[in-house]
């Protein structure tokens, strides 16, 4: 466990982020904090702006207004790979692995690009190898390490994506619907891994549709609707909030 998540804890702070498409603000002034050692969840119906906010955090999109801070450093304008090297890792809703690389190589790509500089030379080589092995072991992938990623079952690929993110020794981990496509047993395992990571000092922010999982895992929940945060606080309170229930009900009516 130690060494996968390093001791340099950092919090992810979002201040007044606005992202517009044409005249419509998909994200309309969102404030959010993902503190280290905690699991923060972002919920809301389809079209609430969760994915757009997520894109602004990971660097796929640039906010029109507001700031994103990683451990006090303004990362609003930094490209994705720089954010990754600063310790902001992410997974994708639609699994993103490199099918022609082996499982171990997939994870190694994450390890090698971690932290600025210093990973060249034999010391860096060994350190990257070590990180790769640890991440593989943590997520139970050692048995399939030398298999090409193509053709592995969905559950294994989800774990692989997570392993690659962790191999980069992140401080903050963004997870976009990590339980999609997992069966019950795999979801249990995922929850255990995420809890362990948080206990290790990582800041986790997950977008998730599965309210049961959110209720079970999250320390804090932000509920979004129409681009704004409508409720935030401890999971039990937010999930019981009638305003939150209303947004979900409206979404269900929509289709």
């Amino acid at each position, binding site marked *: 466990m130690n060494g996968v998540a390093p001791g340099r804890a950092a919090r992810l702070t979002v201040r007044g982020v606005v992202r517009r498409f044409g005249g419509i603000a998909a994200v309309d002034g969102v404030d959010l904090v993902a503190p280290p050692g905690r699991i923060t969840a972002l919920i809301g119906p389809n079209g609430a702006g969760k994915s757009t906010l997520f894109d602004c955090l*990971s*660097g*796929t999109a640039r906010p029109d207004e507001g700031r994103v801070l990683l451990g006090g450093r303004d990362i609003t304008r930094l*490209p*994705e*790979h720089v954010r*990754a*090297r600063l310790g902001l*890792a*992410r997974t*994708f809703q639609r699994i*993103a*692995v*490199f*099918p*022609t*690389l*082996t499982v171990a*190589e*997939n994870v*190694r*790509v*994450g390890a*090698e*690009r*971690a932290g600025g500089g210093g990973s060249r030379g034999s010391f860096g080589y060994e350190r990257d190898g070590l990180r790769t092995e640890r991440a593989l072991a943590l997520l139970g992938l050692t048995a*399939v390490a030398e*298999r*090409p990623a*193509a053709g*592995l*079952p969905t*559950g*294994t690929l989800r774990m692989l*994506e997570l392993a*690659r*993110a962790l191999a*980069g020794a992140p401080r903050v981990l963004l997870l976009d619907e990590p339980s999609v496509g997992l*069966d*019950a*047993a795999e979801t249990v395992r995922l929850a255990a891994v995420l809890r362990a990571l948080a206990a290790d000092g990582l800041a986790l922010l997950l977008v998730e549709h599965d309210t049961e999982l959110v209720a079970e895992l999250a320390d804090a929940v932000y509920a979004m609707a129409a681009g704004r945060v409508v409720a935030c606080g401890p999971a039990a309170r937010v999930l019981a909030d009638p305003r939150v229930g209303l947004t979900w009900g409206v979404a269900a009516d929509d289709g």
Partner: protein
Amino acid sequence: MADGASLSLTVDLALAGLTVGSAAALSGIGLVVTHRATGVLNLAQGAQAMATAYLLRELVVVQHWPTALAAAFCLLVAAPALGLLLDALVFRPLQRRGAGPAETMVACLGVFVLLIGTVVLLWGTAPLADAPSLVPATPITLPGGHLLRLDTAVQLGVVLGLALLVGAVTRFTGFGARLRAVVDNRRLAELAGVDADRVSAAGWAFGSFTAGLVGVLLAPFLLLDPYGLPLLVMETMAVAVVARLRSLPVAVVTGLALGIAQSELTRLRPGGQLLPLVQSVQVNLFVVALLVAALWGAGRTVGDGGPQAVPGGGRPAASLAGQAARAAGTVLLLLPLGFQGDDLRRALLVPALALVLLSVVVVTGYGGQISLGQAGYAGLGSLGTALLISGRIPGIPALPPVAALLVAVLVTAPLGLLTGWPAIRRSGLALALVTFAVGTAMSRFVFEQPYATNGLTLDRPAFLAGDRAFYTAELLLLGAGLLLVRKLHGGRLGRALTAMRDHQAGAAAAGVDVPRLKLLAFTAGAGLAALGGGLMGLAGRAFDASAFDPVQGLVWFATVVVVGADSAVGAVLAAALLVGLDAGTAPGISAVVVGALAMALGRMPGGLAGVARRAVRWGEPRPVPVPAERLSPAGVRTRERLAERLSGRRRDGVVRR
């Protein structure tokens, strides 16, 4: 009065420009209609045009058919039949499989290369000046004393008539409604009972007919040769790109406007150094338009959705197939050392071509970036070497050949940014168009200029004057190139490149600096291509602009993809086979083989290398399967019930598989 004369000249030039303009508009109509009905940007249109023009000439000039009958046969029977054939054999299977734009593009290039190869095989490469014209060039006097040629008038009428016809069919008939449904959403249209396949077939038949018409109409104005006409028609893709592959009126207006503008530009005659440049812009306005259209806007029009990278064969090469291929490559490369005379001289092309093909492997195979412009970089290497040896570059004394080659490579490599920079924000078809346009612009504006065609010397140094010594030197340089390529494919850098090719967003999220890596791939590719091009020049002791024709670049690209885009050994074998096939049999055979294989690529992912890898793996012990997904007890019961029911039905003969 002077104003009157000027106006009169303007009108005359505009009328003259209508000839080329209406051909371009016609080509645009074909591309737009095909794209709307099938979702494919038909890159093979130029080759279809050329093949139809050759067929018409054969029937009229050689077989002595009456012109009207021959034209009717070519345009109404042969061309649409070709379109239907391509649809049934090539594009419909791809569509069914949900192939991405990259695969479809390779299939188009396959058709292109196959048609060119077939024409070269049947009629040779010598330009023919006797292409029959369908309409006599009788001048008609317009009011005001302006002359309009009858053929131009007919051509213009055909363009406007076709555009109106297509517009009317789309708007007012049942077929048009079905077409619009398919354009909007193919899947949904199919669910609603529209036979999308028939719409596609009609699209291909019509597209092929217009392509043939373009070829037949343009051929009398040109020398008919297998490379020139297709390239000219490909340049008119600018028209379709400006029309965003959707709007017929925009395509027609753009085509006519570019034709007229090209004609009017002849009035500009600046003195001195600028003249050749202005003249080449004037002759090649469509290239400029294609470049501009591809750089500004193609990103939004074309190449969205589906996998964008050319499918590779998978990185971990099965050891047995890899060893066999390496052994075969080594033998093929060493064999010519025992050759004499002409055979040896022809073999000089092999290592040089192998280096150019390696550049495609690096950019497309490893980096996943489509580049149709590598012939341009090869040409720059060759021309640069020649200019440096001849001391033609101001401020630099004539260099000895070896130094000249080195400098040319070092200067060309950073020019890889010309295509690398656009690649940062583009992929798939959009990138293909940009790289093709850049390659074509290099050919037209750099290689085919007086300074490049007159009086350049490209002599080998004394110690490499003998063909055998030169071949040995080429082998050493190829070895160095292979080492570089290996460096790019292994270790940290190789993993990052493969990650970028496999999933760009995922690679960026994992901390891979994607833009820098793309630039690196294009720079390395440009350097390798320049080295190969320089060696080609030294081998033949001359700079030959036609060796680096953009169409040649398409053949090379298709070759590498066919062999297996990420196989370096494959590229070396392919170079030997390309040169060997054409020298050993008839010119054109290699293109026919490559084209046919590229068309079939949808059925053999990873190219020939992929097929070899799978064949070897098939014989090897299977890897241990991953433990199956665990099911809950309810899941297990469900599966058992399902199995029972299925096996019961199978016994009844209801479900057969």
